[in-house]
């Protein structure tokens, strides 16, 4: 037996396997995903996220709750009966807002700071502030100062809405106003690179971003003005002095989408084209606002035909909360028009607008005594909205002349405020969240309860309940959390 030679044989495969080991196992670097990316791919993703959140499921909610539309099935029917709970808006919270837009801005700030691309940093900070204001206006106290930091804080604390708006140095919370100011300062600084087509809002026009930033400060000051009138007045005065805010419709902060599949705005799919589109229909109540008397066509707001479709001989709508048989066929239904959705889903999604700025200044001139004439600013707001809707100057003038009770602010300040906010509500058609903020803040427009209203206590929701999944994941959230009838900090009455 030649054992020794056998032994040599035995060793061969072992040696082969051992020798191969040193780098044989070095194959765990993913070829599928980048581990670092540049600002031009982060910016459009984050911008689209903010718009998708504002314009998607939350807009189905806002549009129904603010009576632009009525629920004809699914979740909108629930919203229309004032039902909303922690099972709603999970995807928006998780994937559009915190896990989409906000973490996108966070990464954009980090990536842009590395290359000193201050133009990107500035935009990211302004949009981060805008998106956080949206979050806190919906849910109240939310993770803010500890949010978006991954493993550093896997269960971020909740910051009070008051601290988010006003800042709290002791707790290390930067105010949203300061975040915008920081962003504006970045926009003034030199930048190694600047956005172009990747900026799906302004196409790289930095001056417009500055105007958007200052107008965002107006919007946020306006939001807290009932709770903090002095602070609001200070900030509005500061912005007026700077005189670099949105003054024309062309400067609106509009997020643009496309017409092809996978590029379209959310509301296009939800209200017009997609498989859920038959869950929304024009609200009879809103129709009656724009058309006070069906027999008197001259009183029709010219924006009606722009805001909504009329595929049949007349507008087909249902009342809010209606539980009866739906009109048939669904092809006759009046839906959001191309003004809201774009002809083929392009949008734009309007986040901060010129008419909004005019109405804010009208309101603050009236209630806070900031500079400007409330009536002039009010007329400017209506006119800006009409022009945005493509109404001719002649038609605008005719409408204002024919409807002096609308065109002229009259009565007490409270009555004038109602006029301003009611017109702002009409102008915001297509963006339910913004007018929901105004309604909660001022009580205007005057809305009556839906048919078959249930809710927590039969009243219209004044906040969204915390996402159930988030409560489960983060013990810092109150459990059970406040329900949809609990008012926010800035919602004083």
């Amino acid at each position, binding site marked *: 037996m030649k054992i020794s030679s056998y032994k040599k044989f035995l060793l061969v495969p*072992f040696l082969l396997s051992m020798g191969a080991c040193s780098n044989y196992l070095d194959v*765990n*670097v993913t070829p599928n995903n980048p581990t670092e990316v540049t600002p031009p791919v982060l910016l459009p*993703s984050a911008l689209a996220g903010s718009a*998708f959140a504002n314009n998607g499921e939350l807009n189905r909610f806002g549009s129904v709750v603010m009576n632009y539309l009525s629920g004809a099935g699914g979740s909108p029917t629930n919203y229309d009966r004032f039902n909303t709970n*922690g099972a709603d808006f999970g995807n928006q919270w998780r994937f559009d807002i915190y896990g989409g837009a906000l973490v996108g801005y966070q990464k954009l700030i980090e990536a842009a700071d590395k290359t000193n691309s201050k133009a990107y940093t500035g935009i990211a900070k302004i949009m981060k502030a805008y998106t956080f204001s949206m979050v806190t206006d919906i849910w109240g106290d939310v993770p803010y100062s500890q949010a978006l930091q991954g493993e550093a804080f896997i269960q971020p604390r909740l910051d009070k809405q008051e601290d988010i708006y006003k800042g709290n140095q002791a707790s290390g919370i930067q105010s949203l106003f300061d975040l915008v100011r920081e962003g504006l300062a970045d926009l003034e600084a030199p930048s190694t690179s600047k956005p172009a087509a990747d900026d799906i809002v302004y196409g790289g026009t930095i001056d417009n971003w500055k105007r958007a930033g200052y107008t965002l400060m107006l919007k946020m000051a306006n939001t807290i003005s009932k709770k903090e009138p002095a602070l609001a007045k200070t900030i509005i005065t500061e912005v007026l002095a700077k005189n670099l805010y949105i003054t024309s419709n062309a400067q609106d902060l509009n997020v643009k989408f496309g017409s092809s599949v996978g590029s379209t705005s959310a509301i296009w799919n939800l209200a017009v084209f997609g498989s859920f589109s038959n869950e929304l229909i024009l609200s009879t109540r809103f129709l009656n606002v724009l058309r006070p008397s069906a027999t008197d066509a001259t009183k029709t707001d010219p924006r009606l035909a722009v805001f909504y479709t009329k595929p049949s001989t007349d507008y087909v709508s249902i009342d809010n909360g209606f539980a009866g048989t739906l009109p048939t066929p669904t092809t006759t239904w009046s839906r959001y028009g191309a003004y809201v959705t774009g002809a083929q889903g392009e949008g734009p999604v309007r986040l901060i607008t010129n008419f909004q700025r005019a109405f804010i200044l009208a309101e603050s001139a009236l209630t806070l005594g900031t500079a400007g004439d409330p009536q002039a600013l009010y007329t400017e707001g209506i006119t800006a909205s009409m022009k945005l809707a493509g109404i001719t100057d002649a038609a605008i003038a005719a409408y204002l002349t024919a409807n002096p009770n609308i065109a002229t602010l009259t009565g007490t300040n409270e009555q004038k405020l109602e006029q301003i906010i009611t017109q702002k509500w009409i102008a915001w058609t297509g963006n339910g969240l913004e007018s929901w903020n105004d309604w909660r803040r001022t009580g205007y427009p005057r809305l009556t309860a839906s048919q078959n209203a249930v809710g927590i206590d039969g009243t219209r929701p004044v906040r969204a309940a915390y996402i159930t999944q988030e409560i489960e994941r983060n013990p810092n959230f109150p459990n059970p959390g406040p329900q949809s009838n609990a008012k926010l900090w800035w919602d004083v009455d």
Partner: protein
Amino acid sequence: MRKRLAGFWLLCVLFALPALAQDRTVTGKVTSSDDGSTLPGVSIQLKGTSRGTTTDSDGNYSLPNVPANARLVFSFIGTATQEIVVGNQSTINVQLKSDASQLSEVVVTAQGIERDRRSLGYSTQDVRGDVLAQRSEPNVLNALQGKLAGVNITPSSGAPGASTNINIRGITSFNGSNQPLIVVDGVIFNNDVNRNPSTDNSLFSAQASNRLADINPESIESINVLKGPAASVLYGSRASAGAIVITTKTGRNMKGKTEVTVNSSFNVQNVYGLPPLQNDYGQGTQNNFINTSGNSWGPKFGGSLTQVTTLQGNTVPYQAYPDNVKNFYDQGSVWQNSFNIASGDERRNYILAVGNTLQKGIVPNSKFDRTNVQVGGESKLQNGLKLSSTVTYVKTAQNGTPVGNGGSAFGQITRIPRSYDLNGTPYQDAQGKSIYYSTTQNHPLWSAYNETMKSQVDRVFGNFQVGYDFAKWLNVSYRVTADTYTDRRKMSFAIGSARGPAGQIIEDMFFRSELNGDLLINAHKDNLFLEGLNANILLGNNINQRRDQNTTLSAQQLTIPGFYNVSNGSVFTASQENNTKRRLVGYYGQLSLGYQNYLFVELSGRVDQSSTLPKANNTYFYPAASVSFVPTDAFKLNSNVLSYAKVRASVARVGRDADPYLLNSVFVASSYGNNSASITFPISVGGANLPGFSPSTRIGNNNLTPEFVRSYEFGLNLGLFRNRASLDLAYFDTRSTNQIFNVSVSNSTGYDTRTTNVGALSNKGIELVLNTTPVRLQNGFKWDLVLNFTRIRNKVEEIAPGVTQSPITGGAFVGINPSIVVGQPYGVIVGTANARSPQGQYLINPNTGLFVPGIAGQVISNPNPNWTAGLTNTFSYKGLALSVLFDTRQGGQLYSFGAVDLRGQGHLAVTGIDRDQPRILPGVIEVTNADGSKTYNPNNIQLSAQNYWANLGGLASEAAVFDATVYRLRELALNYSLPASLIGKTPFGAVSIGVSGRNLWFYAPNYMADPETNTQGAGNIQGLDLNGIPNTRNYGVNLRFTF
């Protein structure tokens, strides 16, 4: 020792053959040496031939034409086989000694190692190929249903090729695959259900196959199921969920002959288990006919409304179409043909096997076709070198249509009004557009023909092994195995599809490849150190590489109707590619000691080095030990009552590595939204195509360590009444720790999950297999009974600090999350539960009489059964064998969209009863008293039948949860082997014909249809019917002959 039991069976079959004319007739009597009693049914075989006979009721036999140099082999169950040289004797009387060890048999364990069953300290269960073949079932996993203890097998639907889930001894990993490792002739065999997360989500998928469906059941010689980690430790990490070791047929047992076997079977398939529907009320709501309604809340038939106008403007009678849903389904068929040539002996042999299956499904336009070609052989050279190889090529084609809530054929089939003539009117117009009652959804038949999935699999797998006996006690071998396939899928959605109105074509290519090299050194020594101590040592090394690739070309927004080429698309942004490569090097060893054939100890260990773990943690060791003791032999206890007893125990720990690429945080191409609205980057804005990236929702972890499963097992084997009854009982306890899991994090971190080692998961279970022969008559009639029973308790012990629940990876419908929840079994479904009073009654809104809003985030459904059992009865008489398999699943719950659709929309039979009577939802109304205390009064608010049924609970509610208990006549097979007297003069060696049927009867006490369904297919998410395909009842005939 090789396959003695199988040999015995072969003899039993052969005894029926008459002898051919030859030299002399030998007669005699066979008795028992124990008590002298005569033994009927003893097999007598002429050695080296297929000829033989059996003793009659008095123990007498007669075998004609026996040559003088022949040897007769006398064998009988429970006795030692005797071999006698005939010489010049013409009367040979034989006494057979009882021998408990005769019951021992060789089983194939991990790495192809053959072991005597009695030496095993852990549980295995084997299944012979002949109980899988000719059972009206092309998928081998389905054919195993009800036949194994400790194994849970759940088909997803009756669609051809639909995947089947298999779990052995519960769920042991939070996130990893819980399917057992499949090994076919030593080849690690991929059994994945390749899913493309972007096109195949939980709500809308085309039910692709699990790839074990590529195996032809006819080619299987035997299957051995290695149940616990102790049994499978040598296979390493991937067998921590157990292993299914499949051995295909070879020419090894042909005894030098060449045999050609032809099998042919034809089965028909019909839909069955459909829920009972009402036939009194038609389309509409609130007693009004509405031609666009998906409800059956319209007017009663036989009233004033006799004619209605459809959405298309046609005037049609208003009447029930009782079979409108049933007749949507076709009659399916399964044609299976196979042919094989086997030749050779133990030293040198070959096999050529060809199989073909043609299945036409019950769903229109669906099929599953499979062709297998296998070539294999082995040769043992004079110099001791042994070479063997087998290579199989498989071509599988599957056609189907997606299932899922809403816009699919099966999202619609539960929404067909009772008065809608689904099959009697055209489903599409001249332009190819759907004609239906709804303008936004499509006719289910239109969907079946215009929303399609086609899969074309080309697969090659095989092994090459070379071995050499360096000495009598030392064998070294090297084995190379490969398994590689491509699955080329094409999903086509015509323009007008509900899910993609602009049309879409998805070319989806999956490539899978696995290579293994195994060095095995086997040393054996008898009487080591002391008399009767036998030792066996195995040392092995494994080198493994797995490569996966998935490339998807997605063409959206089609222009030309009916042209299904990606060139017809204008948006390609949903295209993607995903590649993974992983490698593993393992070293393993096993020391087996046997003392006096009654005490056995086995120690095993394996070290793995995996590419998927951080370098510092990528090497991990895990051991196993088992003991088996046969007291009946050790203490000479065997009696006529207790023939054999064995106690066994094992302990094992198996490590498992991570999936590739979990260590880093990455960026992904951005997308937002779901099936209601979505955008996917790159997006096209104002003519510019813009790429967009965002951080992945998962936080990576560069400190991962392997996860481990620890198991204890105790078992008892008993042979009773001279082994006429045998019992195999096992208790096991496994605990999985250090799980690699994507744990939920607060979404306000900016992320959804982080990968980390967490948690603990336990399984405790009892398995029982009882084999008995209650009746064995002298005339040859025999009744065999096999009972198996399984009871497993699975529990999520902990997840991560501060985390009490986390969804299982995989798509889910918002508000219905298959999850892990601390204190609950794996895979419970978390959703919205009804609000309840302190006494547990449902709370009712005092204004509406409806339930108050539910509470989200509650465990509402548990898919895990309480226990399962299967009972196989086999009656045989001469050439006739009837086998009947009943099985049952007790408990476990099904979450059913389909049931809620049918109920809420007034289609279900129960909704037609007393429809004009008011109803009251069960529950109480909360009243707050003046002192702040609360009183709960019974609900007394009446609702119409429509309001009642529609508000009993919608899709995302606990009213969609049903008890899935079911009793079933799973399988019935009657086979007749023609007596040799009939075929003696033909060229045929054996001919058998048979009839068989599957799913012939079921009874589900608490569900309106067959609860055995899971739209999510094989995988960790179970117990969901999100508008799936019903099951089939199959029956047919088969024919087998050899020559």
